[in-house]
């Protein structure tokens, strides 16, 4: 472990410990310039956080401005699915591992909160925490063996496991099997996580959880883990040659993703107050998460938000307006949108906006270009 020209552990204490090179390399800098730690390219790294602030401010005011129960419902569903998309985006958008089984974690979370109160009279918040831990553990057990393989095994495994868990819940009497659980009505309040007179508290709890989720996504994306995940998505061989164990980091991504997904399952259960396996373990939930993220933009922080902003109002309003007869219309429209996106802009709406922004920049009309121009002048 000694003798490395790059190792600086044995350098005198006064030397900057971050120095990569020693004299020999430093002399070779072009034009005799010392290789100083260059100014990092200042990306507008904080911009997504500002956007998040703006979006959450708008979402916080909207339910007050539009005091309509249906609208509140759509807003809550939008926030839940945008967050599910963010969670899914960690494992699929960043790490490139397609999961078709996120409904499994959603359902586990929903059942954990429901069973905690229904069976044991325990606070749903504790159920939520337990569910998140169980979902994380399940995701680890399922993913670890397949992450060591390459190819499509992971996608198939997630699909299969979601189906197995669904069947398990259908015939498990402890969770009331196919009948489902009607969560007993309790006094309103944050402690019981039940609100009967207004949907507004649900709006704000979900909004808080959504903000937390976006921040987690950003945190992952900008951290070393995020770099590693994107490298793994790009090329596992390249990642391994850089000292990255792909299976390990894919596992971390999956566990974070499952944890968040489960929490929103719990929120959903407490909001609807009735769950059965066909609702929360449905393939349609996994698919909605996939579709809305792909439509919005895979791997981008705003992708799932944009996708959910289109899909969720579409599916909820068709359901509200058309009732049972409208079932599936949302997915037909959405499927068509996906085909269009896949053909013309695989990067989704976010990609569309980016390439539009680039074109503007090339024509020299973007704010950036103008700023740069004035800076030079």
């Amino acid at each position, binding site marked *: 472990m000694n003798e490395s020209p790059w190792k600086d552990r044995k350098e005198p204490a006064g030397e900057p410990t971050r120095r990569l090179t020693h004299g020999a390399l430093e002399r070779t800098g072009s034009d005799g310039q010392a290789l100083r730690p260059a100014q990092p390219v200042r990306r507008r790294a904080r911009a997504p956080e500002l956007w998040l602030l703006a979006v959450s401010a708008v979402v916080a005011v909207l339910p007050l401005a539009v005091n309509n129960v249906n609208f509140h419902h759509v807003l809550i569903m939008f926030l839940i699915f945008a967050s599910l998309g963010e969670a899914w985006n960690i494992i699929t958008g960043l790490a490139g591992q397609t999961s078709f089984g996120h409904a499994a974690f959603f359902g586990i979370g929903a059942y954990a909160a429901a069973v905690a109160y229904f069976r044991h009279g325990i606070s749903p918040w504790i159920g939520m925490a337990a569910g998140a831990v169980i979902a994380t553990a399940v995701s680890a057990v399922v993913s670890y063996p397949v992450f060591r393989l390459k190819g499509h095994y992971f996608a198939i495994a997630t699909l299969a496991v979601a189906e197995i868990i669904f069947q398990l819940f259908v015939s498990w009497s402890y969770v009331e099997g196919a009948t489902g659980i009607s969560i007993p009505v309790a006094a309103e309040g944050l402690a019981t996580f039940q609100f009967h007179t207004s949907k507004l508290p649900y709006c704000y709890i979900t909004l808080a959880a959504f903000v937390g989720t976006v921040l987690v996504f950003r945190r992952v994306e900008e951290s070393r883990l995020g*770099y590693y995940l994107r490298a793994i998505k790009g090329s596992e061989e390249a990642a391994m040659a850089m000292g990255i164990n792909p299976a390990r980091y894919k596992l971390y991504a999956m566990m974070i993703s499952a944890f968040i997904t489960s929490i929103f399952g719990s929120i959903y259960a407490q909001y609807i107050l009735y769950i059965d396996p066909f609702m929360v373990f449905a393939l349609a939930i996994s698919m909605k998460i996939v579709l809305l993220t792909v439509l919005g933009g895979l791997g981008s922080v705003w992708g799932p938000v944009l996708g959910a902003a289109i899909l969720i109002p579409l599916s909820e309003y068709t359901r509200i307006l058309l009732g049972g007869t409208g079932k599936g219309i949302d997915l037909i429209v959405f499927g068509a949108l996906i085909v269009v996106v896949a053909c013309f802009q695989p990067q989704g709406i976010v990609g569309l906006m980016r390439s539009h922004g680039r074109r503007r920049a090339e024509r020299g009309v973007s704010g950036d270009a103008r700023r740069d121009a004035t800076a030079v002048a």
Partner: protein
Amino acid sequence: MDATDTRAANARPLLEVTGLTMRFGNLAANDNVTFNVHRGEIVALIGPNGAGKTTCFNCVSGFLRPTAGRVVFDGIDITGMRPYHICRLGLTRTFQIVKTLGDMTVEENVMTGAFLRAPGKREAREVAAEVLELTGLLDKRAKPGRSLTIAERKRLEIARALATRPKLLMLDEAMAGLNPTEIKGAMDLCLRLREAGLTLVVVEHIMEAIMPISDRVIVLSSGEKIAEGTPEEVAANEDVIKAYLGEKYHAAS
């Protein structure tokens, strides 16, 4: 590590490959290959197409588990270890077919490698800046990987590997597909890296590029080592001429 350990490590070659054999079915891509690499050397691994150079690379760097033989790096037996473990010990490689991370910027590509030893983003970015300066990619750092030319991608491969702060760097045809000016630049880079104390093992086809910079040359043919020595010795070796030009030309000459 105490002083005796350090002395022992210095006396030992940095890389010891003993009896390396890699079979794919009946084909022996490497057959009983043995060689050493000493600290501070540039060792070239040459041979005609299909000689087993890349297989040898893959076995040493952990991408293939050899059928038989032993690979010892810096006193540690790394035979059959996974590539990411080997990289952590200080041995890394580049790929003949470049694996640029196209969705990431040049800087992000290199930072990913730097994270192996840099604790935080700021440090990783500083390491990246230094390595990019060294490889002449600093002005391209904000560009996405996929926008680079092939020559730049080859340099980015090297930059990314350097960012992991290796002791031994293995370059798999880092000069293939480059024009003469670019080859000259790559040669200079290799020499600079050696000057900095790095040890290099280089697979290369371009003899004019590899002969002047190598301290030692190892020649593989049909999976076996047929010659080893200084560039001059190897160039004069009859077996080598035969392997490259064929029996007919050898007889005629």
